[in-house]
């Protein structure tokens, strides 16, 4: 879901850059520097995720993991994802350098939205929490597809067509990410619930 160099027009790139910069600024403020290792590991996981090809279905889809990143980092998803995207762009040429802002919005905004939508449920009873985690994994990928479609609207691509194609291509990814997110949430609920957002102050 990375947009390559030279695809988007100047205004789109600039707007994406501005929004991503704003998100990153807020993210850096809200980042818990005492828990920087958490952000580092999630950023590294996101970096590696795009190399994992999901072999079911169309051959062009790869893991994203922005749902999990969003759930555990909230606003700090922006800097974490941005760092990983810079490295992906430089080392693997995934996504153009000028498109970094737009690509950050594609990956990090859904992460943030899923954080707001799903985090209230994570400390409730297990079935509800895991369902919310699964939904988080699915929704974050779907929202990323929609933002990708939005970004391409100004390059003569039809929003509904593009979004439909990308979502359809990523349905296996959505299911896999739903499971991964649910597994991680289940693990953390047992081991260190304070790492999950919305922990009740005891």
């Amino acid at each position: 879901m990375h947009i390559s160099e030279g695809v988007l027009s100047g205004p789109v790139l600039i707007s994406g850059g501005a929004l991503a910069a704003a998100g990153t600024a807020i993210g850096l403020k809200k980042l818990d520097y005492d828990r920087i290792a958490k952000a580092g590991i999630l950023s590294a996981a996101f970096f590696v995720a795009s190399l994992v090809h999901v072999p079911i279905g169309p051959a062009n889809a790869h893991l994203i993991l922005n749902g999990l990143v969003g759930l555990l980092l909230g606003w700090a998803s922006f800097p974490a994802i941005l760092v990983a995207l810079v490295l992906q762009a430089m080392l693997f040429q995934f996504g153009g350098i000028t498109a970094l802002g737009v690509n950050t919005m594609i990956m990090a905004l859904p992460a943030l939205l899923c954080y707001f939508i799903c985090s209230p449920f994570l400390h409730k009873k297990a079935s509800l929490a895991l369902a919310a985690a699964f939904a988080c994994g699915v929704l974050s990928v779907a929202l990323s597809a929609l933002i990708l479609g939005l970004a391409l609207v100004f390059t003569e691509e039809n929003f509904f067509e593009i979004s439909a194609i990308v979502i359809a291509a990523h349905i296996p990814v959505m299911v896999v990410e739903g499971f991964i997110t649910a597994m991680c949430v289940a693990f953390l609920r047992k081991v260190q619930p304070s790492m999950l957002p919305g922990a009740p102050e005891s």
Partner: protein
Amino acid sequence: MKPQPFDLALAKRIWILFWIVGSLWINTASVDAHRVNIFARVEGDTVHVESKFSSGRRVHTGKITVSDTTGTELLRGTTDENGQFSFKVPQKTDLKIVLEAGTGHRAEWTIPAAEFALSAAGEKPVRKKESKVKNVIIGMGFIFGLTAIIAYIRNRRKKQ
């Protein structure tokens, strides 16, 4: 909320979990990319272009544009079902071949003018292959290094 002391047992568990998730990509055959690749080679007076998504799937009906280095468009075409496209060399200068494969995928390949001469002389150009594993290690190393630096600075600030 009071900052918690460093929990080694938890760190070990998180490390194991990370490797379980990370082992998904150990099968290097499926290590792959969000990107479309294009290769072009010269044979005599024809240029053969091949296109693939890094997952191996060919690019059907990808748009090809061939220009010279000043940006003047020389010709256009579409890749066939095998992701291939061939054209006669329009002029023996540096040629830029651009592939657009939809949903934001784009790739470029430049043929230096020298390659036409080499091909005429019967020599095959060498293609470089980038090391994926090496770059993964570099990227992860960078992230962990950055994390460590931030943690160190934070620690020093707290002690003051």
